[in-house]
């Protein structure tokens, strides 16, 4: 499903980020751990096609991510990769339902294609016409997960998805991500330093910086 090979990346005049080779199949789960500044988010951005590495290759479904250029990469990301951020980052002027169907819109699918399904799956169907400002933090994070899932991606990337949530919501969010990844047979990669998640996912790698 996803293969990470020989990735090398460093910011200018910064130590190199040590990125191990990874191979995940559909339904696999992986936790990416590491101290602050160890390059966790950078790694996630590289996986998500947001930041080109200096060397190496990411293969998703056999397609080399960074051989795709511009428009094609954006479209591929929209249909194959779902990204959940630490903060929900929903668009204020739109309703919950409109936010969730946005990936459909960008992928040129009918905007209600999988909308209702994921509103139900994440328990937010009664909020579908609510304004973003009226949501609680836990609800907003669930909306952003629904947005990441609605195009039924092969890879789900989550960047500190529980950092700003309380215990109850954190557990809920991790379980949601795990369940949905299972249902979609997608690979789930969670980047975190949240202790509460550590014992919920077996496989993990720890990133560190290599001094030159």
């Amino acid at each position: 499903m996803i293969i990470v090979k020989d990735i090398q990346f460093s910011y200018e005049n910064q130590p190199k980020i040590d990125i191990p080779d990874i191979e995940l199949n559909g339904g696999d789960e992986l936790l990416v751990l590491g101290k602050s500044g160890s390059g966790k988010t950078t790694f996630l951005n590289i996986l998500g096609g947001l930041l080109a590495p200096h060397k190496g290759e990411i293969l998703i479904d056999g397609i080399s991510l960074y051989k795709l250029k511009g428009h094609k990469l954006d479209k591929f990301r929209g249909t194959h990769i779902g990204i959940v951020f630490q903060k929900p980052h929903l668009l204020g002027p739109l309703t919950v339902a409109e936010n969730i169907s946005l990936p459909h819109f960008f992928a040129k699918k009918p905007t209600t294609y999988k909308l209702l399904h994921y509103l139900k799956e994440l328990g937010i169907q009664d909020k579908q016409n609510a304004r973003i400002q009226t949501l609680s933090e836990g609800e907003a994070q669930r909306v952003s997960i629904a947005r990441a899932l609605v195009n039924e991606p092969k890879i789900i990337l989550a960047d500190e998805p529980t950092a700003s949530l309380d215990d109850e919501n954190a557990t809920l969010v991790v379980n949601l991500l795990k369940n949905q990844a299972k249902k979609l047979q997608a690979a789930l990669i969670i980047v975190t330093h949240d202790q509460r998640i550590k014992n919920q996912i077996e496989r993990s790698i720890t990133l560190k910086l290599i001094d030159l």
Partner: protein
Amino acid sequence: MAKPLSTGLNILLLALGLSIITVLLLIEDQFENKMSRDASGIDLVIGAKGSPLQLVLSSVYHIDFPTGNIPLDEARKVSRNRLIKKAIPMGLGDNFEGFRIVGSNHEYLELYNASFILGKAWTKPFEVVLGSKVAKEKGFKVGDTFVGSHGIASASHEHDEHPYVVVGILTPSHNVIDQLIVTSIESIWYSHDDTYDHEKLEQEVAKTGFPKTDEARDLTTVLVAYRNPIAAIQLPRMINSRSSLQAASPTFEIARLFELLGIGISLVESLALVIIFIAGLGIFIALFNSLKERKYDLAVMRSIGAAKSQLFLLILLEGLILTFIGAVAGLFLGHLFLYLLVIVNEQSVISGLTAFVFVEKEWWILAYALLVGVLASIIPAWNAYRADIAAQLAK
């Protein structure tokens, strides 16, 4: 839009600039039309010496004061020239409550293809025909009488001895005759006489050509139509060389007038352009600032599959929508301004203009506004296009 107040202000500014251009456009278009309509069929105006522009304005458009009177004999002699196809004598100088009384013959009515809603043309002295606007405003019907006063503005001394009788009312023709009171030259003469010869008042007046009289009478102007193009070269020179007469061409004088007005018009126009430029700058700054706040949103949109080009279009569209609103508001305001201007100036030259027309050039205003929108949003849109999402999300 993040800041509705400042955005609204920018749109208003843009609308204001565009409305000025709209008003100028509407006035220019209709004014030139009206000017040439009023002067159609009149190749030359013969009158007393003075400003040729004044002569044309007073005798064709009925706005300025007449230059003075000319002797009937001399006018008749000049008009016999073989280069003249038609000569319509006129006696000006009286008014009724601001509406000018024009003494002429039936050929003057024919010049504007005037037709009657009620009644008929005059046949005897002191019978008058009213332009549609005069009739409407004063509420006159056929058979009503009124007393004219001397001078062309209202509140001069009145000719109270003999009243005018309305015998006909003209259909609206959207040219200068709408606001005139037309009668025979004899009426004008007799109203200025100290004593009345009652026998003369019962005689029929001249319906075409010059009025017949054995007295030494005056005219104000003669409107002339050429027989052939050679007349345009020979006739004005010939008449102007005579000591007491002057000939002026409406086409030439109006072109000269527009040339003089042109400086003023282009001044107002450049002011409007500056306002539009500032409005465009304001929209640019608003988009640029709001983009700073929304960069994260845009990065998130990219991460869920939005293409660079889609975000580029998004910002561009925002600018275009804003300026489109400004353009529509500007066109509306422009028409509204002209409407108010016409209402306030009922009896002046612009009273014949209407705000309820759409001139083709107004499409250009729309296009121009959208161009401002593109220029104002192209840099913010380009910034959105090449924004580095990873760097943006890392913040």
